[in-house]
């Protein structure tokens, strides 16, 4: 009983700390990774609240899908940034390789 309570308290503390770190991270990549970690912790919390259905949805959508979308957004921001800087000072070879063009 006491052990389980301790685990719960630790989970809550880690959740709050991760949420705070994700919110205050200066590096957006770091913030995204922390957010994914937070989603997994929240899904653990749902398990502890005896809601395994919600836990599964949280892990899949809250951590997985949202994480994938955020990483994709970050990459698109990088790509736009690259385009902007290359417009100001065009590098020697600005055209992407076919591989990059496919998946960039």
């Amino acid at each position, binding site marked *: 009983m006491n052990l389980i309570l301790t685990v719960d308290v630790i989970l809550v503390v880690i959740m709050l700390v991760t949420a705070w770190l994700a919110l205050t991270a200066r*590096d957006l990549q770091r913030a995204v990774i922390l957010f994914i970690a937070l989603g997994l912790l929240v899904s653990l919390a749902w398990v502890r609240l005896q809601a395994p259905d919600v836990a599964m949805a949280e892990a899949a959508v809250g951590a997985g899908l949202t994480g994938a979308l955020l990483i994709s957004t970050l990459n698109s921001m990088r790509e736009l940034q690259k385009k902007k800087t290359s417009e100001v000072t065009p590098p020697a070879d600005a055209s992407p390789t076919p*591989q990059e063009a496919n998946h960039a």
Partner: protein
Amino acid sequence: MPDFYDDDARLTRPRIVALALSAALVALLSLIILTAPGDLERLNLVARERLTESGVANPVTAVLLNFRGYDTLLEVAVLLLAVIGIWSMARYARVWIKVPDTPVLAAFVRLVLPLMVLVSGYLLWLGADAPGGAFQGGAVLGGMGILWIAAAVWLPDFQFQRFARVMLVLGLIAFVGASTLLLALEGSFMEYPAGEAKNWILVIESAAMISIGMTLMMLFVGGIPRLNEGTV
């Protein structure tokens, strides 16, 4: 690679508005929780008592697909609206993922994809007796689609668009179709005939799972798949 830093900590007007709205939402939710009527326990008992009539043994599935099937019908419609919204706003689909130049990822994805289809079907079937169901199975299907695209094993093209459209509306069509059929047969909306609830639920859930999976995948694609090659 220039990375993105968020140094801006100013309290601008939009941020103050967002802060105020978030605080108001927290206050409202707290108020609702604190002043919730005390007979929630009674509702719980009533639902559990009638569980045997619902056609499934998992109380969550019973509530989602039987007792409160109408809510789930609207949820499926909301998911479809989300994709329609994205398709209306995005000029073209484009997935921003850097693919590592290694055959391991593609091989792994090819191996794991069929297993994911199996798992999603298992989760759907499991939903009748244990945690699982259309949303969980659909999430696995959606994850499969995202993995597929992210590993660049395959990219959705124009031909895929028609298939995607059919899959997207399948869940809503099955749900509305079943409800309408039940209205004609039983005389009431979303009320399954006694003893046959499980079959109806299974058909609706299967269609909903496919639509949910396709919806999640299309959210990741982020626009209408229309180019045959190059960007997705």
